[in-house]
């Protein structure tokens, strides 16, 4: 059992969710309620990571943040090492490739809030921020919740992009998914099976707890 790898996977998933939660709420809301030129393009771009194969996407990320890119060079100057092949690099990649999972369900959640309820909130004297916190979020909550669960679970399982951008460095970027692959390659089926079982167990537990919470919230509303 590679505890390092498990720790890395959970940590990566947690950081990704933490960063994407405000993005999910704000971007999901903006896409749900605003009409602007190029909105269709933005929505398509958000969905892009879903459509691209992970290796292709990983490759593009490597080119965009690698040592030959402006971002990579800037990072090198600031911190003395590369952004890619580090945990931070994984977090950056993870945030990007989870965008569709984080934004789309949240957007649907916000879209489900009836228009006249939102208008009523404004006419009750609530500023847009107050309306978001007191009316829209309590009603769109299940969508945001789904978005975060999907993001968490997807990150735990992501392989191709993590491998490309992370390099599978033990203790730094070798997540559980990659460690399992490693053990299989070493013909160590026992270890691989154990880690796989633990991963599945954690994922199921997280999802179950989240949906139980979500159902509680849903019951309160009806």
């Amino acid at each position: 059992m590679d505890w390092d790898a498990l720790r890395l996977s959970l940590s990566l998933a947690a950081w990704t969710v933490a960063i994407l939660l405000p993005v999910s709420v704000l971007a999901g809301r903006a896409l749900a309620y605003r009409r602007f030129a190029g909105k269709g393009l933005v929505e398509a771009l958000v969905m892009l990571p879903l459509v691209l194969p992970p290796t292709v996407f990983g490759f593009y990320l490597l080119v965009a943040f690698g040592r030959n890119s402006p971002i990579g060079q800037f990072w090198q100057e600031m911190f003395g090492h590369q952004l890619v092949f580090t945990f931070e690099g994984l977090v950056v990649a993870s945030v990007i490739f989870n965008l569709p999972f984080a934004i789309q369900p949240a957007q649907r959640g916000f879209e489900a809030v009836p228009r006249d309820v939102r208008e009523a909130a404004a006419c009750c004297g609530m500023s847009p921020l107050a309306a978001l916190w007191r009316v829209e979020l309590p009603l769109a909550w299940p969508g945001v919740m789904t978005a975060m669960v999907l993001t968490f679970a997807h990150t735990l399982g992501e392989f191709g992009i993590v491998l490309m951008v992370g390099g599978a460095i033990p203790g730094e970027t070798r997540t559980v998914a990659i460690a399992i692959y490693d053990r299989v390659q070493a013909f160590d089926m026992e270890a691989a099976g154990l880690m796989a079982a633990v991963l599945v167990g954690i994922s199921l537990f997280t999802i179950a707890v989240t949906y139980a919470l979500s159902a509680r919230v849903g019951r309160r509303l009806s």
Partner: protein
Amino acid sequence: MSLDVMARAEAPIPLAAEFRVDPGELLALVGHSGSGKTTLLRSIAGLWRPEEARVRVNGDTWLDTETGVDLPPHRRRVGIVFQNFALFPHMTAAQNVMAAMARGVAAPRVEAERLLELVNLAGYAERRPAALSGGQQQRVALARALARQPQALLLDEPFSAVDRATREKLHGEIVALRAHLNMPVVLVTHDVNEAQFLADRMVVIEKGRVLSAGSTAEVMSDPAALRAMGLRELAAMLPATVAEHSADGLTRLDTATGPLYLPRIEASPGARLRVRIMAHEVILSRARPEGLSAQNILAGRVARIVAGEGPAVLVHIAVGEDEILARITRRALADLGLAPGDTVHAILKIMSVARDHVAGAV
């Protein structure tokens, strides 16, 4: 504290309207779907901005396209009741009402309960919208709009989503509530009878333009307006005073030209009210008839006769200073040989005057 509205637009729908509502007054914007009445209402609330518009309340400018002032809805002290109630589903009735209160309110909970009591929902404070009927939800919506202490109260077809019985009940409650409504009130409706029942002044809108405007009585006599609104289900509101209640379950009202009986109502003698008399339930007679079961016979004078498209005509009958409408066939008119200026008697069954057709006078 008056509300002044001017709006002009070409797209998405053509609009050209202007009106003023005084405090305590209820103005009805009447028109068919798509006439632009809801759009006008929404521009008062700040939910839509016409190309050219001005909305001023009590000296404050809410919207002026010329000077670029455009306050968002949350900065206009406006109370609005939506067609589909638009209550916050995750809050109780009391919480919904409190949501509209400004921050500085002293005892919001107490105030919320007071408002709920005002709309006849005492005891419903802890209910959620899902556990309320349509009529109850609308009352909560009204209480919520009032909680805002609005400078203008807007009602957007507030009764079209409830059934007829509930609607008529709510009409009565609105009338009773008028005493507490000391701000300008604008009601949008496609139902002429509702407008006539509730409003002091009416503005008839067709294709975004004002067809007719004025007091309710004036508009209801305007042939152009009547034609636009359709002649069906017309009624007149006749002012009367409660005289006495009789032992056999009736109440006698005194009108300008005679008594009017109806099934007993809850009102003290001396109270002034208005009675709705449906035009199609009025029978006309030249001479005062005898031996009829109908007890209500009012003398009057033919003021005007307005022809319709079908076989019916509308006869305006002056009863003292007020008016009753009678809808009869062209044939009947010809048979009676009625003309403006003739004396005529309007006959009405007691049972035709429903309790719900009585409104407290303003």
